[in-house]
């Protein structure tokens, strides 16, 4: 319960992107999204393991289904953010915003 459920920046990213994509999230999709958004290469195994950890903490739930992706193999494990997960994200955002408050003169406006 609470932000202490999310460990570290990476898990944060994964949970955020899972929330963004919605119920159709699966590992590969998250990998693509994170890479496009952060501009950095991301390890699929790291993402997968992070998702399973989040699942163990109750912040996401997963199900193995035949999806509608391309290719001969259509089975995917789809992940969906739970209410717990949403709450955790909300709380973490509060904390971040409170920590960031008033730091503009030091850090400057947003970076391109």
């Amino acid at each position: 319960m609470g932000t202490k459920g999310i460990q570290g920046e990476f898990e944060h990213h994964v949970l955020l992107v899972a929330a963004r994509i919605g119920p159709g999230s699966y590992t590969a999709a998250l990998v693509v999204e994170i890479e496009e958004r952060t501009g950095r290469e991301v390890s699929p195994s790291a993402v997968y393991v992070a998702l399973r950890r989040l699942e163990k903490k109750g912040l996401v739930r997963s199900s193995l289904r035949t999806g509608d992706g391309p290719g001969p193999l259509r089975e995917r494990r789809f992940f969906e953010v739970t209410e717990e997960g949403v709450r955790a994200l909300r709380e973490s955002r509060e904390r971040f915003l409170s920590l960031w408050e008033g730091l503009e003169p030091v850090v400057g406006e947003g970076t391109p």
Partner: protein
Amino acid sequence: MSRPGGGDEPGRPTHPPRLLRVLLRILLPARERDHLQAEMAELYGRRSARHGRLRARLWYLRHAAGFGLRFAPRRLAALADGSAGATLRDARLAGRVLLRRPGYALTTLLTLGIGIGGATVVFAAANWALLRPVPGVSRPDGLLTLRLQQGESSPAFPVSQPDLETFEERLAPITDLVASTEYEVNLDPGAGGPPRRVAAALVTPDWFRVLGISPYRGRLLDPGSGGPEGEEDVAVVSHRLWRDITGGDEALGATLRINGHPYAVVGVAPPGFHGAELPGHTDLWLPPAALPHVEPGRPLESLEQRGSTLWRQLVARAAPGANPTVISAEGARVMEEVRQEYRRHSFHANYTLHAYPGVGLAPRARNTARRTLTVLGLGALLLLFLACANATNLSLAHASARRAAVSVHRALGAGRSRVARLVLMEHLILGLGGGALGVALTAWSLRTFSDASLSRFGASLQGIELDVRVLGFVAVVALGVALLTGLPPALAAGRGGILPGLRGQAHGSRSAARTRGGLVVVQVALATVLLVGAGLLARTVVNLGSVELGYEPGSALRFSIDPRSQGYGEEEVRTLLVRLEERLREEPGVRAAGFVSPAPITGSYVTDHALPPGGDDWEDMVRGAGYQVTSGALEALGVTLVEGRWLDASETPRPGGPPALVVISEAGARQVFPEIPAAATPGRLLRRLRGEPARIVGVVRDIRPRGPYEAPVPVFFRPWGDGPAWADIAAVVRTTGDPAALGGRVRAIVASVAPDLPVYGLRPMREQVDRIIVEQRLAARIAAVLAMAGVLLTGVGLAGVLGYAVTSRRREIAVRTALGARPAAVVGRFVGYGAGLAMAGLVVGLAAAAVLTRPLESTSLGPHAVLFGIEPLDATTYLAGGLVMLAVGAAAAWIPARRAARVAPMEVLAEP
């Protein structure tokens, strides 16, 4: 948000290559396999479209490995149950089977242990001798050993200081060049103990820095001060010498007297470091300023002379990636430049600079070690094959005994592959056990063989350790052996019907019996080869020992002293020797004593010349060995006087006086005066190199001054002082009893007459002679061990096969006996069978030995040939080998044959 994976790729979808897909499958846990594979394929497709196939594949490989690493703990846990669980069960089952047949298990274990141990000994020796690093040297892969040689196996030629500097300047690929050269010096540690003889090295000032050595205590020689001469009067000692002198106490700044000159100890080298070459003996390092002290009579100014040679061992640090061949070529170029520019240099035209990677075992020693190890390796390989053949045989016999259990398994549903796996598992356990035993045997035998006095090669094995590489070797060999010996029985186990086994019938197929017989033949052949080899080497040693040397090494003690380096003048030396000779002769137990220079047998070879009075040409000049002796020396050496008398040390010639006196050997007499018998030459005059006359006063029997390998050469003995003064002075003391017992008294006598002089090289003369043939003795010893092991294993194998034959044909024997066959006939059949196998193996073995020992004729072991006084195809040796094998065969057949004779027909036939 755009849906990934959809509509980005036009046309053809790209899939990861099959190999990579399979790899990923293996690495993924079962439940997640399918979807993760699919997702990785999808990501691969995207990447391939964006970045090309190669990058996509690399990406796939990287991240497949990532999955593998993340799931490894889980997979290993799963392995514990699942298929690996079956393997563990197999192992337990196999273990139980082996425990029920301890005889078979132990015999096989021992057999494999001996075979694997033999191979491991050679590998460990090779690993240690050829590959071990020099302790204390940092970043050894940037270092190169340079030598000025005519060829890779010839001795190194020294280089002068100016030439060294030129090399360093102009050899582009190297960044630093340092050099050392070795001396033996008298060391007086003052309060630290009695005077001793140590190996010292003169080194260029930045020698330690380039090798990357850090001091254990104090500091090392300072490269900064003093220019090319370095510092004055300072020395660095080895850790071993420091412990010896100070007992580990902080005694830096202690003064040592080196050849009588005081030096301050400024530092201690790290433990185990004795120079850049292995095996190292250096205990003292001195800067070049010490040159006049270590080489008396050589001025320090000679360092500046381009023609004055000094440095023998060169070490270079090279730019990374430097190639020794390139450096050798560069070296040749620079040498040619120096020849042209300076016209006076320290190297001859036919010497080139050879570069060898790394430091450590000297290049020539590397070659010797390699040759020795190759010969030994072949012997060990034969033994290994022998052991494997034995083990396979034992296993096949055992398999037949195992048949009942196997049949039960198969009746209960185990497939052929399961049965085969069980058999392989048994062999795996035996193989690994044999490997462990082999390691133990290796450790034990290496300790026995690495005695430095055993040989130069033995010296290079000192302190040998069994490191990771050796253990890896053992593991590989053990696994290989397990597979090799296990596959035939494993494949055979599944064969045949189930019922015969359940009924208790023995496995009596003819092909199995033929295989076992064939394996015995192979074993006998291999053992025969080992026997012949050992026989040839043993006879070599005997031949060497029986060569008439011309002097008597038995009951004589020898030692050396070096008063000249200590600063003694010629008159002082003479007085010293006369006094020592007197004191030694007075000693109870001493029959004769005297001094010889240079030292006989292993000392330098000084050439003396003689001409008959009429002869004038250089062509008529007789060349031989020359020695200066004191009065008692010839008698102490035990040379045999044929005619005439001994020399007296007081008979040194004076200028303007009567001719010098000389005692010559028969060979000398024959060559100088070919027309008259040698015994008639005393009284005659011969002429020396510059025409001076010398009168022969005595003739001695032929001498081989340097050991059994050389033919007798002319030897000329002159009275002490008649000739150049060499540093090499040896004393010979002939004793009535055991020479070794007089060692302490001898030291005491020298200490009382000359307390500043160390006594070194003190040993019985017999040992000195033995050292010449030390490589041959070691090789003969090892070959004998291998041969005995081989014969033992073969005997066991033969006995096993015959024993099994008896067991499996008990009914047949019973029937025959019941029908009236005499026991002798029954025994005869089995002995005949065994003899047949042995004969077949013998024939093959002798033929193989004839082929394999051929190269021994031209191979060398150490500095001399492997064989001496015997040809590879020596009839006696082969005959002896054959007889031994037949005897072994007969002995091996004896017990099973007697068992056959004692079969009680009624009991056996009454069995179900």
